[in-house]
């Protein structure tokens, strides 16, 4: 079955998630908006600490509590406002309608329960009334779906008995076990070696094609973005700074930060002597400047940049979905 991009199923608007700590308020997510369509693969890109994981956890309302709170914004899943849901109702959504593959698959399985047990737990939770035998069958089916060899035996294994790549697949199986509409994959490959990484990405794509689910792919690897995704949201210091179709972003990166990120991707054709890296550090999240957060590191920065936050400008023709928040774009339009 071919993948078909359909209706918008997830709308995130102006999301703010702050961490209230003893040392002050950390604005981990400070204004993120994006839409996600059925069957689509959306990349969230940004350097470490830009709030990608916090954004993803906020969608499930699993931001580290009690310190972190969603203070503003809205999250709509198939038209329903998730921020109005009770904890009980959110539990029905987690795993069943939105699922997530956590950043570190090596430690995301509980060491004292078997693979089967952990898989069944996810299945049972959303298939009430099913009993032992049929649940085990479903678990084995699930492992088959993520191409685990000898799944009948694997269900009996404990996490420490299987390889890293296999754990990754098990975590994947848990995520898709209840046929969710949306899967968030948080840098799912950073801890794997290159060949296993490639295999896993292929698997994720195959699963997406089979089930037509929507994928949010968190990464800081533009190479993966090019291979896997349809659209990109670039985040910087808790805010999205540019978003649009992959091709547009690659061909016309319009925010200086995106341009810098793309320049730091090693290219296959050129023989680069030195990888480009962005000078300076991102601003402290508890002491953000009022203007553009990238201004201090930006080669085009003007006076206005550090005093006023730029709104989002459409890039290209009218009706384009490519937009970026940079004052330079105002001059060009």
């Amino acid at each position: 079955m071919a993948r078909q991009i359909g209706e918008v199923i997830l709308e995130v608007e102006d999301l703010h998630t702050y961490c209230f700590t003893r040392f002050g308020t950390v604005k981990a997510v400070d204004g993120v908006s994006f839409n996600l369509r059925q069957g689509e693969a959306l990349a969230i890109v940004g350097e470490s600490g830009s709030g990608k994981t916090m954004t993803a956890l906020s969608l499930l309302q699993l931001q580290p509590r009690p310190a972190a709170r969603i203070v503003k914004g809205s999250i709509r899943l198939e038209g329903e406002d998730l921020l109005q849901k009770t904890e009980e109702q959110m539990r029905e959504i987690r795993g069943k309608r939105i699922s997530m593959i956590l950043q570190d698959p090596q430690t995301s399985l509980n060491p004292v329960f078997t693979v089967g047990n952990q898989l069944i737990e996810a299945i049972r939770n959303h298939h009430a009334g099913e009993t032992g035998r049929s649940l085990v069958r479903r678990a084995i089916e699930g492992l088959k779906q993520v191409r685990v060899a000898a799944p009948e035996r694997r269900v009996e294994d404990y996490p420490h008995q299987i390889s890293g790549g296999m754990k990754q697949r098990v975590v994947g199986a848990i995520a898709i076990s209840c046929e969710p509409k949306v899967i968030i994959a948080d840098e799912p490959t950073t801890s794997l070696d290159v060949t296993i990484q490639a295999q896993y990405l292929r698997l994720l794509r195959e699963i997406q094609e089979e089930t037509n689910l929507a994928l949010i792919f968190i990464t800081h690897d533009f190479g993966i973005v090019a291979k896997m995704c349809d659209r990109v949201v670039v985040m910087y210091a808790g805010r999205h700074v540019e978003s649009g179709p992959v091709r547009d972003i690659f061909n016309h990166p319009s925010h200086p930060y995106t341009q810098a990120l793309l320049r730091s991707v090693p290219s296959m054709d050129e023989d680069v002597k030195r990888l480009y890296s962005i000078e300076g550090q991102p601003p402290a999240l508890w002491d953000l400047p009022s203007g553009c957060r990238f201004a201090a590191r930006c080669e085009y920065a003007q006076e206005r940049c550090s005093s006023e936050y730029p709104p989002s400008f459409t890039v290209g023709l009218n009706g384009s979905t490519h937009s970026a928040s940079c004052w330079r774009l105002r001059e060009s339009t």
Partner: protein
Amino acid sequence: MQRFIAIRFLQSLLALWVMSIIVFGLARLSGNPLEVMLPIEATKEDYARLEKYWGLDRPLHEQYFVFIKKALHGDFGDSLKYQGRSAMELVTERLPATLELAGFALLVSIVVALPIGVLAAAAKDGKWDTGAKIVALLGQSLPSFWLGIMLMWIFAVMLDWLPSSGRSGWKNLILPGITLGWFQVAVIMRLVRSSMLEVMDSEFVKLARVKGISESKVIWKHCLRNAGIAPLTYFAIIAGGLLTGSVVTETVFTWPGVGLLVVDAVRSRDFQVVQAVVILFAGIFILCNLLVDIMYAYLDPRIRYQ
């Protein structure tokens, strides 16, 4: 797994053997036992005769050999105070009472400490956590003899609900059990709380929540099973605390156990009995350690399958 248990078993035997050397050594170091046994007016000949009788004139390694041979048969000599009774007999006679008390105290402390520790961790800085801190503070600052006397005064003297001494029924167990278990409540609770907090931060707990399972299952199944492993390693220390603690508690409540016996034996310099108790307590302590390791292996598959 079998290999693991076999190795730990051999290690336990080794520990017991070292223990026997220490006990033997201490007995010789603490001076000539004959000075305690014989009256002041005893002559040189009396000393020589008894030395020969007890084998004290032979070289040390031979004496140790005899000591260990007898000890292996459970023979630690005869009690000096209770003529005609062997030290081991006296100790084993009292042992059930002590084990009963220690077991009950352990049960009380776990039943109280475990849920408080878990709830305190589940809502860090919440009301359970505050309560837990108070309990921990009280548990470690109230000496057990004082607590014992207070409990006795309130429940036995003023209210007359419970007996204050002796061992004639289950009611007798309550006050000494609480007194003995009280200190351990604080210890166990803090262990449970801290290892729960550590586990709750891990990725697999996040994954459990992502799966959409209920918070109580996350806490009581996913976290506790992992967090239970760490406090368990302290079980032997807790058991040790219960055994030594029984000395004070049994004295306060005249509970006829080994603790009361050993206080009595020390007072009357009944050295053979003291020795037997020390060896026995050490043996129990080492056995607890062994049990802990086996339980640990059972709870943690990473060890079970090595």
